[in-house]
């Protein structure tokens, strides 16, 4: 009897093995092997002639599935005017698959991995599309941009080719249709208590040297307080992430939030290691000077955002990093409640040794991936035309942001305004309707990028002044395409993490004066011991290889 029991167990195992094998082979036979370049059979619903400036309208009703990132601030509703009007204008109905925002990436991976992804997968940030390239589950969209006149027109008109090149993979193709911006939009800068400046007879600082002088003057007036106490040090990979990002800009380096382990040296035409450049050292030196003279609160690099804001509101500090939203909603609103006559303004990013420049490359935004299954659909061409219209045409972008003229907004010249009774991002707290919640416009899934006219139509007065000043500055060139092959990619990430950690830790130690700057050379040798040179070489070789193969 015992023997029989063992035999049956073995049989069970064998059976399980067979089932497993059968499933595996079953998966492999899905490819239909037809020529994917031939689009003549996929014209269902497509327009014969579709050009820039033309309204896309499918010749017969179509529907496409789309992954929808469900934002809890404006949860998806089926009765949004957005869906209805979209169908009315284009003849296309979206079939959204709603995914909660927190776990969007997770579900996206499962859906793509299981071959069950919707045709359109928006809200994808480069480089997260890279993970799906080797599986063949997403389409190399660069092969099909000839179906997208608006996309090509904007790339050409706004000279976005270098940016587009930067997202190409080692096969020379790109797999993500990114959001396109006409101009760089700088988000962060220094905000100062301007009433205090006025009282002390100081003008608004335009360079970092002037910032230093202003801080010194404030310190002289209030010796027991810190002029500057900063935030964005918690839940960010870098301490004082905002400060280093815009201070770095003045030195022409990518630091803080914009930190990139390698950076393009346009003069030497090669990639260099950001954390070991001379400009990076100068930037640290400046912060070190502020810390040493007690002009910046050393807790800036460790405290929470709330703590930093409390110090500002309690007049324990007079300057803080800001973006246009927190400037108005957190600082000014609360300051004016608590302190009579308090005023705070955000100055254009102060200038430094690099002159009036902004960092390049920030003109691409998150974008849309297309599932490879979509290519099998007979309405593939119409879908690409539709994507082109909604995400890349002026009319489509205006529609996704502002909605329907006369219904949700009015326009005179370049001035857009929500209709009375409709609030756009808190513009009218008493309004009964909300542009995002009730109508589904200005939804992060569909509305981003675009011409400067359109982007700036949504600026608050503060941001408008700020952006006008910033937009006069020159954009630094971005690095050329240097896609790594997958085994190189793995090696690079193995090297990169310890390198980045070492840079971050030492940036802070140098800045806080815990490590003397005379040890800079020692620090660079430590980086070399952590494979800095091999890491940079890897990228330079990839650059040379790509140049040779694709030029």
């Amino acid at each position, binding site marked *: 009897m015992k023997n029989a029991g063992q035999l*049956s167990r073995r049989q069970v195992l064998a059976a399980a093995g067979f089932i497993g094998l059968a499933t595996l082979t079953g998966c492999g036979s899905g490819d239909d092997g037809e020529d994917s370049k031939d689009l003549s059979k996929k014209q269902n619903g497509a327009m014969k002639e579709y050009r820039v400036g033309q309204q896309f309208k499918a010749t017969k009703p179509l529907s496409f599935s789309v992954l929808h990132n469900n*934002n809890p601030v404006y*949860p998806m509703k089926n009765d949004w005017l957005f869906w209805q009007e979209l169908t009315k204008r284009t003849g296309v109905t979206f079939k959204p698959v709603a995914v909660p925002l927190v776990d969007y990436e997770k*579900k996206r991976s499962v859906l793509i991995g299981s071959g069950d992804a919707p045709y359109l997968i928006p809200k994808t940030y480069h480089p997260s599309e890279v993970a799906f390239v080797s599986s063949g589950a997403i389409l190399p969209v660069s092969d099909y941009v000839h179906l997208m006149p608006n996309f090509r027109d904007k790339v050409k008109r706004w000279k976005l080719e270098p940016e587009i090149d930067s997202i190409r993979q080692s096969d020379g193709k790109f797999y993500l249709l990114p959001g396109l911006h006409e101009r760089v939009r700088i988000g962060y800068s220094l905000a100062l208590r301007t009433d205090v400046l006025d009282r002390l007879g100081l003008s608004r600082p335009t360079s970092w040297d002037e910032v230093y002088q202003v801080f010194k003057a404030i310190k002289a007036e209030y010796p027991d307080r810190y002029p500057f106490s900063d935030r964005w040090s918690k839940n960010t990979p870098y301490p004082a992430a905002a400060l280093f990002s815009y201070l770095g800009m003045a030195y022409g380096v990518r630091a803080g939030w914009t930190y990139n382990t390698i950076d393009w040296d346009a003069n030497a035409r090669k990639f260099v290691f950001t954390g070991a450049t001379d400009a990076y050292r100068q930037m640290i030196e400046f912060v070190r000077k502020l810390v040493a003279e007690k002009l910046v609160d050393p807790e800036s690099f460790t405290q929470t955002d709330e703590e930093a804001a409390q110090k500002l509101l309690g007049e324990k500090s007079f300057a803080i990093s800001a973006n246009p939203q927190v400037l108005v909603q957190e600082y000014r609103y609360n300051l004016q409640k608590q302190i009579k006559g308090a005023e705070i303004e955000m100055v254009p990013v102060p200038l430094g040794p690099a002159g009036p420049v902004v960092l390049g490359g920030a003109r691409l935004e998150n974008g849309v991936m297309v599932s490879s299954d979509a290519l099998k659909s007979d309405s593939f061409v119409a879908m690409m035309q539709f994507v082109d219209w909604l995400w890349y045409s002026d009319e489509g972008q205006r529609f996704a942001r502002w909605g329907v003229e006369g219904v949700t907004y009015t326009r005179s010249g370049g001035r857009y305004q929500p209709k009375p009774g409709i609030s756009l991002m808190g513009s009218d707290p008493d309004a009964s309707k909300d542009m995002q919640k009730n109508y589904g416009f200005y939804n992060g899934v569909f509305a981003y990028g675009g011409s400067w006219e359109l982007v700036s139509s949504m600026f608050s007065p503060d941001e408008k002044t700020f952006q006008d000043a910033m937009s006069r500055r020159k954009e630094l060139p971005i690095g050329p395409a240097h896609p790594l092959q997958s085994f190189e990619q793995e090696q690079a990430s193995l090297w990169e993490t310890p390198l980045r950690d070492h840079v971050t830790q030492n940036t802070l130690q140098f800045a806080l004066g815990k490590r003397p700057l005379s040890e800079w050379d020692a620090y660079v040798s430590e980086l070399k011991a952590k494979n800095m040179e091999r890491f940079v070489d890897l990228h330079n070789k990839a650059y040379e290889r790509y140049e040779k193969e694709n030029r």
Partner: protein
Amino acid sequence: MVKPSRSYRVFQGVNGVVLTLVVLVTLYPFVNIIARSFSGERQIRAGEVALWPQGFNLTTYKIVFEDAMFWRNYGNTVLYTVVATAVAMVLTTCYAYVLSKRHLKGRTALVGIAVFTMFFTGGLIPNYVLITSLGLKNSVWAIALPNAISVFNLLVMKAFFESLPTELEEAAQIDGLSTYGVLLRIVLPLSKAVVATMVLFYSVSFWNSWFSAFLYMDKSELMPVTVYLRNLISGATTGGNAGAADAQLSQVGANIQAVTIVLTSLPILCVYPFVQRYFVSGVMLGAVKG
């Protein structure tokens, strides 16, 4: 009646004090959470809330309650929990009862199959493909069926059934009961303790689970309340998008977590005291024999 000795009374006194302290330590987080859920934003951020709400405020509750989707999702949670627990109980009981019979052929193999799944799983994507191909997506079955048998619960139940005297069942059979009759009329009525325990285990785990719903449901109307609140928390704490940062939402950000915990654990807390008396004996019963 014998008077308790002095040392025993001392022991009782010390015991009482120690246990009271333990109770306080255990209860404090709960009370604190409840207090936070009713407190104002400033007081929470300043860390002034301990046992009693400070700056009484109901904004977050109001926001959560006013949303029709919240109630819809709450209803889903109740539905999924009831259905999934019912399915799980039927399947687990049957499986465990069968396994408790020593004369069953291939019993070790059946146990082995169950235990195998404790150590190995097919992984996320194969599971997803399976559920999708079976057409279970967007239905309660996607939640109920894959998690219907928890091996741990199964083994506890099996041990319990094994501890029942076989004579009882033999007597019932002589009196003319079929196998099912024995199970339904003799064994189950004697197993209230373990059944109650299992119902509690299953329902708590289904009540709290969010992952399978998140995975297999494509519409927000189908999500359980756990997914709803999870999303709300993230929106409130990351500031979501620019428009969100008004005064109301910063209040929500301050105590949404507390409100969430209160709202989701309330029903289970209400049920617990009634099931608890079975619960204690149930866990003990399996343990001795197992």
